[in-house]
């Protein structure tokens, strides 16, 4: 492998995708949106820079039409950006010869689609084996592998069903099994659960977390649901009108939103479950009275809220036996109800 362990698997530099005729002349980014609209040019993605590490679950969020799908299609090499480059392990995806790109897709990338994209003429087994069939794998071998995948997503016994005989959740499981059949390293999921109802959706998220724990892929996941992002993401990127507004962990986005747009996304997030003791600790004052107890730094607030609530005294936040700082009832409540945070918060623009 050409790169060291923590070099990004996938990166993009100044990627822009403008739809419309003669769109390239607007690449310098100086034109006003109105000017582009007058020329019939639609900016879907504008000047995006990203680096996604190996094994990371990277979630892209944004309102409808903010360019998420377009960005992920650029990252997957499905559409060529108008400007900028997409690097897979340091190599420009669009400079690769056709043959190599096909090999790359066959063996190292997988994708799950919002509307499942199952082939209507194939059974569950046929659909899951499809990528292997395309690779030219012999029938017995690819069906064995497909059966494994079907079992993995919990659809054992339905191998001979056709897509139209399955529920939405089951269909998406097929989509997931199919995208995993070739054992890709890089896994794209474009709003895979948006078409599902909330209960199944929740179940599928758990399923995905379970799979990720087993398989440990590099994941690029799109959603417009912050809860979903929080449940799955290592890092979250927020997009608005084609631009990347902020990239960070859920905690960072909640505590330090770069704009009101980001704040609006995080407003209804379950803070008690996301924020950890580390995020809200403060340095103890000189006249601090004795501490009531100790809390591990990585515990979410929900894990110790009752204890802290019960007393006026602060708790010590510890990690590896060291005390990092303290938290008390008042600071905790401030954070939970979203009152402007004292101390580390920078004023939002």
């Amino acid at each position: 492998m050409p790169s060291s362990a923590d070099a990004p698997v996938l990166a993009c530099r100044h990627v822009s995708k403008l739809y419309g005729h003669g769109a390239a002349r607007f690449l310098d980014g100086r034109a006003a949106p109105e000017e582009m609209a007058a020329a019939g040019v639609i900016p879907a993605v504008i000047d995006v820079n990203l680096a996604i590490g190996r094994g990371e679950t990277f979630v892209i969020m944004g309102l409808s039409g903010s360019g998420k799908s377009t960005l992920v299609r650029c990252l997957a090499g499905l559409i060529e950006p108008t400007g900028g480059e997409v690097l897979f392990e340091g190599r420009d995806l669009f400079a690769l010869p056709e043959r190599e790109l096909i090999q790359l897709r066959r063996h190292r990338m997988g994708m799950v689609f919002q509307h499942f994209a199952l082939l209507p003429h194939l059974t569950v087994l046929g659909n899951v084996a499809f990528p292997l069939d395309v690779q030219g794998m012999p029938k017995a071998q690819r069906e064995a592998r497909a059966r494994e995948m079907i079992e993995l997503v919990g659809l054992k016994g339905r191998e001979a069903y056709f897509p139209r005989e399955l529920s939405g959740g089951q269909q998406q499981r097929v989509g997931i099994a199919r995208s995993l059949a070739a054992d890709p390293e890089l896994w794209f999921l474009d709003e895979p659960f948006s078409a599902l109802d909330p209960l199944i959706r929740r179940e599928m998220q758990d399923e995905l977390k379970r799979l990720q724990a087993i398989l440990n892929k590099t994941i690029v996941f799109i959603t417009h649901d912050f809860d979903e992002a929080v449940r799955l993401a290592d890092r979250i990127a927020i997009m608005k009108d084609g631009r990347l507004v902020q990239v960070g962990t859920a905690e960072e986005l909640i505590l330090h939103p770069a704009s009101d747009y980001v704040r609006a996304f995080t407003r209804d997030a379950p803070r008690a479950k996301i924020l950890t003791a580390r995020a809200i600790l403060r340095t103890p004052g000189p006249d601090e009275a004795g501490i009531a107890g100790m809390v591990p730094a990585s515990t979410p607030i929900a894990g110790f809220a009752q204890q802290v609530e019960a007393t006026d005294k602060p708790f010590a936040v510890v990690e590896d036996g060291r005390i990092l700082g303290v938290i008390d009832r008042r600071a905790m409540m401030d954070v939970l109800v979203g009152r402007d945070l004292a101390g580390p918060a920078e004023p939002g623009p």
Partner: protein
Amino acid sequence: MSAPALEAAPPLARPRAAALLWPVVGAITALLVLLPTSALPGWMWKLPPSWKLPLAGEVSAFVKWLVDSAALGPLAFIDLTRAIAWVLDWPLALARALLVAGFTTGQGSQAVQWFPPLPWFAVVFLAVALAARVGGWRLALLMGAGLGYLLVFGQWASAMVTLASVLVAAPLAVAGGLMVGIACHRSPRAEKAITPLLDLAQTVPVFAYLVPILVLFGFGPVSAMIATILYALPPMVRIAAAAFRAVPEEVVALARMSGCTRRQFTWKVLVPTARPALMLGVNQVILLTLNMVIIASMIGAGGLGYDVLTALRRLAIGAGIEAGLAITVLAILLDRLAQAMARASERGRHHGARAPRRYWLPVLAVSAALWLAAFLAPPLATFPDSLQLSTAAWWDEWVRWINITFFDTLDAFKNAVLLNLLVPVKRFMLALPWPWVALVAAFAGWRAGGAGLALGALAGVLFIVFVGLWEYAALTLYLCGVSVLVAVTLGVPIGIFASGRERLWRAVEVAIDTLQTLPSFVYLIPIVMLFRVGDFTAMIAIVLYAIAPAIRYTAHGLRGVPAPLVEAGIANGCTRTQLLTRIKLPLALPDMLLGVNQTIMLALSMLVITALVGTRDLGQEVYSALAKADVGRGVVAGLCVAIIAMVADRLISAAALRLKRRLGLS
């Protein structure tokens, strides 16, 4: 708020001006028609011979040159056409040997048959076994009944001739159409090049390309098959292209993400995903192939088509109807079989059907045994005469009875329509000076679709005039116009009435489907019997053939009106009539216009066929060119029909689009 008011002003003013436009055009037209002919120069009706373009002669000369002396290096053009004919002859010869002639050696009267064709009981057994396998006992029953009809009514021999050519032509047309459709999908440039050719192929009357085929490929079943393929292929291309376009974008992305090569994408994703829509194309090809059977028999196809044609010429109504129905039976059987096969291939694999080998080996063994039986005992192979019957005499008797009993009524009816409708319209059309028609066509084009359409319409009219066919074109417009008028006046109310009544609508749908499956010639026979030859007969045949889309699209449009709008109307207290006139009809109007468009297209294609009953328009021109094998005359007259069809199509489509936009439907 003043801005909306300002914006609203022009659309209010516009309709008022527009409402005046067409009455003015109408008034001028009336004036021109009523004017004594001497008021305008004569060339406005009849072009002096010296002005005419000698296009027909040039086309004839070109084809003659092709046949006589064109060559690519050492390879003469005529060798090329012979080679094509030779290649196509192989599958056809095989199918004919199997079903009709048996395997023979030697030529003509010296031919020695060393093995007979499949006897009728083997064919019936195989077909029923196939039907049972793919479509269950219902289809098997239908198959048995259909083939039984052919046997009992003595149509078997001819039906096998027809079946042999259909079994070769239809798959070739499907495969060819699929290939062209794939090419269109892969390259937008190819699509751009092919689309106008498709337009032309679908609007030029079939007779017009029979002539060059006849000259290039000679008289015989192969020529007939080539004509059939050419006729059935364009709709397949269109349907395939549309089916591929409808494949979801995500599925395309999936194929790419799986690392499909172009070929894998086409055959593993594109075609299978589009298959249900493609089956519609197969259905169309089968229907068109069988529709062509009669026309193809004019250049040597033989079979059922030939039987209908000769019956028509002898005015033998019973024989004609029996053979015509046999064609319909074949069409229905083949179509249902193809549909069932498509469904079976989707379903069969996992729902525990018996392994194909365990089914087909016994079936084929039995068929072979039956075949052998026919070889060993030849008399077995003919269906016993005692079991055959014919309704021909009964039909003949029946028509004679009607003719005798109702002669006066029928004649009075015919004369009334002739005197009050056909003759006046004919006079009117012939009295129109062509420069005015060209002007109006251009103006209508400009109003509906802008400068491009205006120029196209103008060029079309001028072409017709300067090849010297204006008079024929006027007669075409007259017959076609009257027929469309009648079809629409009858069809639209039927559509409106049936659209709201679920059961009735289903019955009407079956009726118009049947009307469209019947080969168009079949209509002619009883009508000719009742009304003898002439424009009136032609009109009735055209109306019967072309009324289906008028009904279908009207009902579709009405049934497609969004439910919330209807509910809004009800909530506002509309009566049933108001609901229809204020809400449903305006919204259904674009669809209805498309129906009128289709009606015109069908009317034009039927028009050529009615040349057989002695009309005197472009259709007759094409038909007599065919009879004299005059390539140039046939092609030019055919082009004129195509031009009329295309101009009408573009004008109406553009108008429908404009209307749709105005109603905010697109």
